């Protein structure tokens, strides 16, 4: 197609800067990975302790949500620019999905 463009201006100039930036970003990735592992451990630990279901269930769901946010924003780069359409559609899908789940947990009740 004729109307294609690149997102970088002059590759030679910003090259070094980019390399450093992406190395830095990679460090963030490792940190978020450690956090995710930690959250997983906490979730498994909470279940292993056999506490009250009223506490454990919301707690592990919360941990799962936090973990998924890490996945989406760091591993899948949704924090980067140019992800407006992806986030719009992902969240819309999530909304529809959550309504479905809510329905199935409330009005299919017998």
């Amino acid at each position: 197609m004729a109307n294609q463009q690149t997102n970088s201006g002059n590759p030679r100039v910003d090259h070094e800067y980019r390399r450093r930036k992406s190395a830095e970003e990679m460090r963030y990735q490792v940190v978020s990975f450690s956090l995710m592992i930690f959250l997983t451990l906490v979730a498994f630990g909470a279940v292993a302790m056999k506490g009250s279901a009223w506490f454990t269930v919301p707690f592990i769901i919360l941990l799962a949500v936090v973990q998924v946010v890490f996945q989406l924003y760091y591993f899948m780069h949704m924090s980067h620019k140019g992800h407006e359409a992806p986030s719009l559609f992902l969240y819309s899908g999530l909304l529809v999905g959550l309504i479905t789940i809510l329905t199935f947990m409330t009005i299919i009740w017998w």
Partner: protein
Amino acid sequence: MHAEEKLTYESWPAEPERSTLEAKNKFTGFWLFLGGETVLFSSLFATYLALKDKVPDSSMPLAKDLFELPLTFVATMLLLTSSLTSVYAIYQMKNFNFKKMMLWFGITALLGAAFLGSEVYEFTNYVHEGHKFTSSAFGSAFYTLVGFHGGHVAFGLMWCLTLMIRNAKRGLNLYNAPKFYVFSLYWHFIDVVWVFIFSVVYLMGMVG
């Protein structure tokens, strides 16, 4: 910039996954597809939650009788780690380091295969305990949800291997970089789904 063009470390763009129109379309289209997949898995989760522990006779095992922490934990670790290794692969892709990228994708595939192995082992155990696809609505819903995810992992594995074999000899270019990138998105998404599976199916199942 044409897709087939031979590029160097210097001319490699910052966002090789989105630097041609084809790549941009692929990128956007795949994200939209993931939006649809979100609804697909939500529907399966919803069905599972509605049918959880619905068995025709009380002698059949329920969620709390079946699931065990250690095995789930191992599977989770395998898949989470594979998510990190595919991040490394993309990192190397952006650095125009083809060999390292291939190495990390190779590790990702190995971890994925190990995950699948653990799932097969797990399912075999359940079947022996009388928890079958055809024995109850609970069984049907469980195997459909977890199996759909397993199917996604298996498909991802095939995809990854095809990509690696096909591109083994030709190095990185703007034609295949978006393909690798999109695969990594897919792989992370599988991981996202698994986070909810281990939380909602396994952990919540064990809580009761």
